[in-house]
């Protein structure tokens, strides 16, 4: 008997789902090791995490609140990666989107909410989008790799925001805290339910996922994105405007990350500060990969990753085990789903004949 690897033509939906689910489960199981090292009981820890993430209406609201930016940064990564545009700059794009929301929504424009909220969102989308269009243009004009540029831009943008909230944008009424002037009440996203933090950004995220799903499957742009992602040379040969398609992808991808920033400012905090995002941009990459770059899957993967973070915080408060457990699960999920993708490309075959 011997093993043999065989190329798969197409992986079924069931197999794709299985790989994603399996990756999440294996990542959770592997984290039992560090939990044991920290002197905790994995079963108790898992129980506390589930309870902390889903155990009450409040817990569920916190999880969905945390999932909101992750859905959008996840979609940002998913649409870009599909076109093989390596946008690792969602973190910076999120901050620029949030900044645009504050610039437009803190008194510059006086409008009723029905007008101001969409205006703020469009501003955030465009600002985030430009933040990805620029590196893409640089790549097309100068051939400089977008991975490193978007990564480095994250640091620049956060320093830029820090400079603004300590300087010209600083709220004089914030008792010296480095935070921006607050958004007008008319610019804020309404809460979904009274006394809970969930806000309309969640609906925005789900709608964005559905729009993206339709776009990828049913529109010419969606077809072009898939074609460019699969084989750039062939796409160009077939007459697809590759550079233009990439720029559209960049605008959409950066824009979605910008919307995540709008949601955090207009839906949760009400102002901008340099600690607005605990790495939502980077976690978005994991969300997208866990979802197999599927827009609808992104919503589910975002809720999973959000639950891990919220659950780990609550578990950490109860047991004293460091909440970096959540970051471990996130990192391991990414690596597990990557290994899983190996089985989407190949199948393992046994050959019994050789032995006989």
């Amino acid at each position, binding site marked *: 008997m011997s093993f043999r690897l065989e190329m798969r033509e197409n992986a079924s939906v069931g197999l794709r789902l299985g790989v994603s689910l399996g990756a999440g489960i294996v990542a959770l199981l592997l984290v039992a090791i560090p939990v044991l090292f920290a002197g905790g009981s994995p079963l108790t820890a898992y129980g506390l995490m589930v309870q902390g993430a889903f155990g009450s209406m409040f817990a569920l609201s916190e999880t969905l609140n945390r999932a909101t930016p992750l859905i959008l940064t996840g979609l940002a990564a998913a649409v870009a990666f599909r076109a093989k545009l390596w946008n690792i700059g969602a973190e910076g794009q999120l901050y620029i989107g949030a900044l645009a929301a504050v610039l437009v929504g803190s008194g510059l424009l006086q409008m009723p909410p029905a007008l101001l909220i969409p205006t703020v969102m469009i501003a955030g989308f465009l600002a985030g989008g430009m933040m990805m269009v620029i590196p893409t243009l640089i790549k097309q004009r100068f051939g400089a790799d977008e991975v490193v540029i978007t990564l480095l831009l994250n640091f620049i943008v956060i320093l830029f925001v820090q400079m603004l909230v300590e300087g010209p944008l600083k709220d004089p009424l914030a008792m010296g805290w480095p935070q921006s002037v607050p958004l007008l009440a008319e610019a804020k996203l309404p809460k979904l339910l009274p006394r809970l933090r969930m806000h309309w950004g969640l609906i925005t995220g789900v709608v964005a996922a559905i729009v993206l799903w339709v776009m990828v499957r049913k529109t010419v742009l969606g077809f072009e994105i898939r074609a460019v992602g699969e084989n750039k040379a062939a796409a160009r040969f077939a007459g697809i405007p590759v550079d233009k398609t990439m720029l559209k992808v960049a605008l959409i991808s950066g824009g979605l990350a910008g919307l995540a920033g709008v949601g955090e400012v207009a839906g949760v905090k009400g102002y901008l500060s340099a600690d607005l995002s605990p790495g939502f941009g980077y976690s978005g990459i994991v969300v997208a990969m866990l979802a197999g770059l599927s827009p609808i899957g992104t919503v589910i993967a975002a809720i999973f990753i959000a639950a891990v973070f919220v659950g780990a915080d609550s578990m950490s408060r109860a047991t004293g085990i460091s909440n970096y457990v959540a970051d471990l699960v*996130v990192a391991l999920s990414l690596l597990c789903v990557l290994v899983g993708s190996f089985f989407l490309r190949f199948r393992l075959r046994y050959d019994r004949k050789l032995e006989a």
Partner: protein
Amino acid sequence: MDVLFDILGSANFWAAAIRIATPLIFGVLGALICERAGVLNLGIEGIFVAGAMAGWLAVYLGAGLWGGVLVAALAGALFGLLHAILTVVLGLSQHVSGIGITLLATSVSYFTYRTALPDVSTPPRIAAFQPINIAGLSDIPFLGPALFQQTPMTFLALAFVAIIAFVLYRTPLGLAIRAVGDNPASVEAQGLSVRGLRIGAVVAGSALMALGGAFLTMSAFDAFFFGMVNGRGWICIALVVFASWQPGKALLGALLFGAFDAFQIRLQAQIGQVVPGQVFLMLPYLLSIVALILVARRADYPRALLQPWTKGQRH
């Protein structure tokens, strides 16, 4: 103009430039070895964190300083091995694996630090490496304090530049490593293992990267802080393109970068009242982007970079 000459004329400035360049020298050399063999290692940022934490923790728990350096290198090698298994053996996306390694190495380091030291408010310190005086060189006026008052790790980094340049260009192993990143089929035709060479290069390169991290906690500072690596790894990925994958140019790039950084810190002291501090802090990242754009068109990427290899593959 006077400010400029004051800064450039002080031995202190040149010493700082070399000090700032040291972790970058380790990092660029590490990235260079990986990429010369055809593997992009975006795990570098996390491997820096792992090296910084592991080396420091080993010394804090009682190991000697060189013992700490060894532990850091081993930690880096381990993450490098994982990256090699995913990208070389399984042929998976080097981008995604690298990001995954960075996330994993960072979270493992932070988790270990928090678990080992649950209730410290100020980061504990170790007795870090001190500057040494090699054969009285440090006593030469101006040049001594400018160039030779460094810790042993800086001299180690400089030694690695020479060693790696020698191995890459003067030994059969170096020829094989360069070929495996340019034309793996030719290496296989020689009867050598493409995968073996690549795995070895990624493991060795990652160990070097970790030394860059270890320099931060064991030489530049004497404690571990969260977020202390702060993009240094990514800067190395930009610098290696700038250095066109050559050890000598990598040293030059890192030194230029160190000089620029040391310069902006001193300039900040002079005109910091007029310009916000963040502008200065942004400069290293901006400089890396500019450097990347300037050389991008001429950059001679290893031709098989990012391309997995299956045994017996034909083009």
